C-alpha cells in the first residue's frame, strides 16, 4: 500500500525559516534509509502558505481565488512523502524514525493511506480505469 505522510506546518515553516544544517543532514540520512529500503516513492518540502493560492470551486458560481498566507497554521502542510509499505504498522514505525525538528515545539506528521483503484469500486468503470492506466503510462513512460 501507499501512504502519504503529511508534514504539518509550524510557525517556523510558515515564517519561511529554513531548516538548520543539522536537521537537513539528519533528514538526508533518513531519506537515504527510506530509499535504500525501497520505501520512498516521492517526497518534497513546500514553501510557506504565503506563496500559495486557494481556489474554491462551486457548482453555484465561478471559482473564487484567495491568496495566502492562510490562518490555522497547524492544519497547513509544509511537506510530504509518499511511501510504499506493507501496512500502516510499518508506516508508523518509519514515521517514528523521522528526525524531530530542532529545539522548540514538537513537529507533527499525519499518515494517510492512498486510495488505490480497487478502493473506488463500481464508480470507477472499466472505461475510467483504462483512462487512468493510459495516463499513468504516459506519466511514467
Amino acid at each position, binding site marked *: *500500500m501507499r501512504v502519504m505522510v503529511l508534514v504539518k506546518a509550524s510557525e517556523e515553516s510558515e515564517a519561511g525559516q529554513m531548516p538548520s544544517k543539522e536537521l537537513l543532514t539528519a533528514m538526508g*540520512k533518513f531519506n*537515504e*534509509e527510506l*530509499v*535504500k*529500503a*525501497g*520505501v520512498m*516513492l*516521492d517526497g518534497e518540502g513546500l514553501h510557506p502558505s504565503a506563496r500559495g493560492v486557494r481556489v474554491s470551486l462551486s457548482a453555484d458560481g465561478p471559482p473564487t481565488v484567495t491568496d495566502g498566507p492562510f490562518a490555522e497554521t497547524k492544519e497547513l502542510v509544509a511537506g510530504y512523502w509518499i511511501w*510504499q509499505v*506493507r*501496512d500502516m*504498522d*510499518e508506516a*508508523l*514505525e*518509519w514515521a517514528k524514525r523521522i528526525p524531530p525538528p530542532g529545539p522548540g515545539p514538537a513537529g507533527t506528521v499525519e499518515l494517510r493511506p492512498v486510495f*488505490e*483503484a*480497487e478502493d473506488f469500486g463500481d464508480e470507477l468503470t*472499466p472505461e475510467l*480505469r*483504462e483512462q*487512468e*492506466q493510459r495516463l*499513468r*503510462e504516459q506519466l*511514467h*513512460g
Partner: protein
Amino acid sequence: MAERDAHRAVEAVWRIESARLIAGLVRMVRDVGLAEDLAQEALLAALEQWPQSGVPDNPGAWLMATARHRGIDRLRRARVAERKSAELGRDLELRAADLERDLAADLDDPFDDDLLRLIFTTCHPVLSADARVALTLRLLGGLTTPEIARAYLVSESTVAQRIARAKRTLRAACVPIEAPGRPELAERLASALEVIYLIFNEGYAPGAGAAVVRTELLEEALRLGRILAELLPDEPEVRFFPNSEVALPHPLALRSGSA
C-alpha cells in the same frame, strides 16, 4: 490491547529491519541458513521482551546485537566439539568485533554492501528459479513461509522444502557470499532481475492467489527493483525499474473489475 499493539510494532520493526539484519549476519557467519536462524532467534527475543520493555531506540542495532550474541554462543559451544568450528568461532568473534565497530561508526555503509551481497546470493544462478524466488521473498522481502505459500498457491511444506533445499545448495556449492565483479556481473544481474520479474508476473497474473496477496507480490517486486536500482546506480538494466511508480504500468490500474 497494549500487548497486541506491542506485538504489531515488533512485526513492523521486523519487516523494516529483517533484510539488513540477515544481510549483516550473513557477512558474519557466511551461511544464509545460520544467519536466518540467528535473526529469527533475535525476533523471538524481541517478541518476548519488547512488549514489556517497549521498542528500543535503535531496534535494528538491538536485533543485531542479540543475534550476534546468539551466534557467538552457538559457535563457542561448537568449538568444544570440533576444531574446524573453533576456527570459525574465533573468526566469528573477530568479525563480531568488526561489526560492533561498524555499528558504532556508521549504520549505513556496511549494510549497503551486505544487502547487495545478499541479493546476489539469494538470486544465484546455481539455484532453480523457484528456489531463488522463495529464498528472495523470505530473506529480502521478510515474507513468512505461509505468506509465500498463499501467494503461489502451493503448500507450506513445499515452500519450506524449497527454501531448505536452496540453503543446502548454496552451502554445497560453496557459493561465496559476495557481489560479483565486472566479468560476472551481467549474468548475475540478469539472474537477479529475472527473480524480480517472476515475482512481479506472479502478482500480475489474473487467476493466481487472492487479490490482496497478489498486490503484495507486485509491491514487493517493485520494492526490490527500487532497492537494486539504488544499490547499482550505474547499471542501465536496473534503471529500467525507475524510482517511483514504474515503467511497468501501475499494476492496480490495470486490473479491471478485480475482486
